[in-house]
């Protein structure tokens, strides 16, 4: 168990920067998820921590020790790969033992560690089988077992659930969380799936174009995204973001106009300021006197909730309503926001506090 | 980070013999060809392109080239057409056909001396398999010797084009045939409009590869006719062989070898260009 500190990590491929000045503190025992769209650098960052990629500049410390100059095997990290990367010609037991033999651990210690990992993961019956004779979920467990037996300072997961089917994914999700609780190890988890990040991690790092956009607990990020990118990346369906302009400024209160609606926020902003106003779909509800009016384009009925897409001019809003809703495509309806549910962003997309 | 220099250590065990037995000899061969070089060691003199000039004026060289091309232009179409025909017939997944495919490919694994011994006996005018039907000594006949070598070569090597065509046929999606069936296409129409066009690329590749192989014909001629009768089957490689190991004219033979190398390299280059995009489909 150890903490992980990244300082100004840069990675360039020729002229292309994959990571730009990434700095990060991960406390011991944390479960940190790296999320971001594809190409944002999250995998590169993880592979740099593992040592599978060399960094151009900056520093990586694991448990206080400088790691970025060490060989991957010497960093005290274990990694679970996307496609598991099990050795196909070895049995599960040999897969688990391979790395331990390579560092010259005594036989009984290897046996002890494999026994323990097998017990934790309930893979005892699989140990003499080869990966080819296992299901996806079983392979996943072996891959995790191979990481556990190393008793690493740091676990790294590279989108480990993306090659599983949907049902298994949900099951393994909670299994990994339980594993984290049981081992108490520091874990870094890369995913493009924000649901995985929200449900599993203690902290989330949102990456975009090689930069850290925001770091925080899942709810911090969800409630107070620091910019439009984070606001729209977390949450499904994503937050509605409308361009707006301040029309009145009455001391502690301002009125803005967005999508032909006038809305009030508890904040003093000079008249004429252009900004963006964001509101999450679940913060909108049907209300005949609501400020946002528009024509229903699509209704997605999911049973326990319904997503109503309405448009007004070239603006589109999504409202999430519980249960079913009595609206039809083509109908004119109005929606209203909940009190104080607005997120305000300046013209550059940076948060300027809620309203 | 792992040091990548260790890669050199992995490559070295191969690279060493490669440099000694491929790269160096190739340069050496050019060097030879610029000399009048008697292998018995009595004479070694720089002659520049003299050997190539001699070659251009040598009627035996031109006759060998003509014989080689004659053989190639008979053998390549024969191999390609026979291979294609066998592949088209034997494509279907019948157990009997799997056995027959094995039969037609089998002779490919024999050495040239086995194949020529068999055919020498088969073609023997007195005791051969055809002795009762054909009373001519085929291999001593000016007009029949070369065709006989072609027949031997086809019997020996038809498995290779057949297997390549079978592989090409397997790449045609089943759905195309099913669509054709729904369009009421006759078997002949399917063959002409779907199968053969789909094999165009494979065919070109097979033709080039067979050309490269057959142009280098040597063993069959040496063992069946020895170049005769009256030099009618003396081919280029055989001419090279005789210049080097009968007349011991190393420089002159090297000039022949280098010309052969250039011709084959051009053809191989063509083959690689053809082969590369095929993997993508």
């Amino acid at each position: 168990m150890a903490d992980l500190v990244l300082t100004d990590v840069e990675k360039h491929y020729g002229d292309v920067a994959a990571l730009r000045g990434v700095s990060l503190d991960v406390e011991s025992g944390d479960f940190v998820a790296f999320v971001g769209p594809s190409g944002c650098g999250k995998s590169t960052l993880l592979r740099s921590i593992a040592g599978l990629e060399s960094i151009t500049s900056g520093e990586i410390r694991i448990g206080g020790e400088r790691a970025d100059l060490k060989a991957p095997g010497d960093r005290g990290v274990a990694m679970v790969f996307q496609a598991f990367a099990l050795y196909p010609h070895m049995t599960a037991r040999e897969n688990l033992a391979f790395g331990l033999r390579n560092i010259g651990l005594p036989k009984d210690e290897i046996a002890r560690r494999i026994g323990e990992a097998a017990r934790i993961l309930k893979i005892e019956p699989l140990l003499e089988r080869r990966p080819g004779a296992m299901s996806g979920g079983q392979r996943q467990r072996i891959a995790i077992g191979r990481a556990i037996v190393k008793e690493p300072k740091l676990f790294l997961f590279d989108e480990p659930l993306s090659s599983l089917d949907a049902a298994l994914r949900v099951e393994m999700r909670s299994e990994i969380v339980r594993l984290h609780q049981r081992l108490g190890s520091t874990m870094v988890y890369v995913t493009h799936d924000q649901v995985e990040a929200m449900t599993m991690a203690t902290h989330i790092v949102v990456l975009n174009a090689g930069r850290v956009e925001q770091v925080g607990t899942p709810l911090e990020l969800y409630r107070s995204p620091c910019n439009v990118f984070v606001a729209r990346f977390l949450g499904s369906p994503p937050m509605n973001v409308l361009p707006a302009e301040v029309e009145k400024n009455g001391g502690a209160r301002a009125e803005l106009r967005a999508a032909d609606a006038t809305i009030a926020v508890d904040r003093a902003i000079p008249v004429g300021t252009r900004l963006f106003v964001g509101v999450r779909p679940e913060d909108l509800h049907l209300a005949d006197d609501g400020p946002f009016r528009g024509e229903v384009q699509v209704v997605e009925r999911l049973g326990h909730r319904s997503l109503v897409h309405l448009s007004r001019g070239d603006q589109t809003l999504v409202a999430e309503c519980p249960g079913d809703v009595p609206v039809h495509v083509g109908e004119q309806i109005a929606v209203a926001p909940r009190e104080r549910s607005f997120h305000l962003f300046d013209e550059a997309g940076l948060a300027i506090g809620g309203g | 980070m792992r040091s990548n220099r260790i890669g050199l250590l992995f490559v070295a065990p191969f690279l060493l013999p490669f440099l000694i037995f491929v790269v160096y000899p190739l340069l050496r061969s050019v060097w030879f060809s610029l000399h009048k070089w008697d292998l018995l060691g009595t004479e070694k003199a720089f002659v520049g392109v003299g050997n190539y000039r001699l070659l251009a004026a040598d009627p035996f060289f031109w006759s060998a080239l003509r014989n080689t091309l004659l053989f190639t232009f008979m053998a390549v179409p024969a191999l390609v057409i026979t291979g294609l025909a066998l592949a088209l017939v034997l494509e279907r997944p019948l157990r009997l056909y799997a056995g027959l495919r094995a039969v037609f490919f089998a002779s490919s694994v024999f050495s040239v001396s086995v194949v020529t011994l068999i055919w020498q006996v088969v073609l023997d005018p007195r005791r051969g398999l055809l002795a009762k039907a054909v009373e001519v000594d085929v291999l001593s006949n000016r007009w029949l010797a070369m065709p006989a070598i072609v027949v031997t070569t086809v019997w020996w090597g038809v498995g290779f084009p057949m297997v390549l065509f079978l592989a090409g046929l397997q790449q045609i999606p089943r759905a195309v045939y099913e669509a054709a069936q729904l369009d009421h296409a006759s078997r002949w129409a399917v063959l002409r409009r779907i199968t053969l066009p789909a094999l165009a690329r494979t065919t070109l590749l097979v033709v080039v590869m067979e050309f490269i192989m057959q142009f280098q014909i040597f063993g069959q001629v040496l063992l069946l006719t020895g170049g005769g009768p009256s030099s009618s089957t003396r081919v280029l490689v055989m001419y090279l062989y005789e210049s080097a190991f009968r007349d011991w004219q190393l420089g002159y033979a090297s000039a022949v070898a280098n010309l052969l190398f250039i011709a084959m390299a051009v053809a191989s280059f063509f083959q690689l260009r053809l082969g590369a995009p095929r993997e993508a489909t």
Partner: protein
Amino acid sequence: MGKKLRPVPVEVIAITLVAVLWMLPMLWITALSLQPNRALLRATPLIPTQVTGENYARLFAVSEVPRWLLNSAIVALAITLLTLILSSLAGYAFARIAFPGRKAVFALVMAGMMIPEQALLLPWHEMFASTHLHNTHAALVLPRISGAFGVFLMTQFFKGIPREIEEAAELDNAGRFRTFITIMLPLARPALTTLGIFTFLGAWNDFFWPMVSATRTEMYTITIGLASLQGNFAQSEGLGFLMATVIFASLPVIVLYVIFQRHIVRGVAGGLGA
């Protein structure tokens, strides 16, 4: 399912007949090899009137065939083993290790595939003559381990193995060489089998170079030995004996073909053809 193309019986019969004709030379010489040489002076029938094993017996008693077979076995096995080792080592490096100069060296090796052996044969002959190494097994083996094809095949194969597996090994503290031996080589077994079979067949059937290099009969390979027997059968009484020699000499490749037929055909269709 719709209607499957039903096999036309006429077609099946016709192609089967062609196949029988195709095999006829083989069947016939097998028949000859089982008949007494004296009987063959009178007639050479496809169906033997007298059957004998004496031709095969004499093979061991009087001929040099066993010696030639031994030479072939030594040479072909040595070439195969060395080719597998050198090709897989080099192929792995070309596929996976970005050592300095990799691209240039690989291009050079690939260009080596375009060179016909006739262009190299005369320099080889001179090299071995000047070092007095003709008529040795080494002379037959050494030039044959420099072929670029195996390197090409293994490079292609190793490129297809997921990189993650190697990275997992790297995190498992396995160095390059250990990764190669314990992970990559076992994974490469199918490719090594194919390469091994083709190398062995090629070495066994090798003709031009052994003919030039091995000039003493006791150093002949079986392929050269058989070539040396050509032409003297017609007048000789030993037709049955000669055919027994051919059959016996071909047995190793026939056995190999029967065992590995699928491998061989797949190899031609896949890696070797395109």
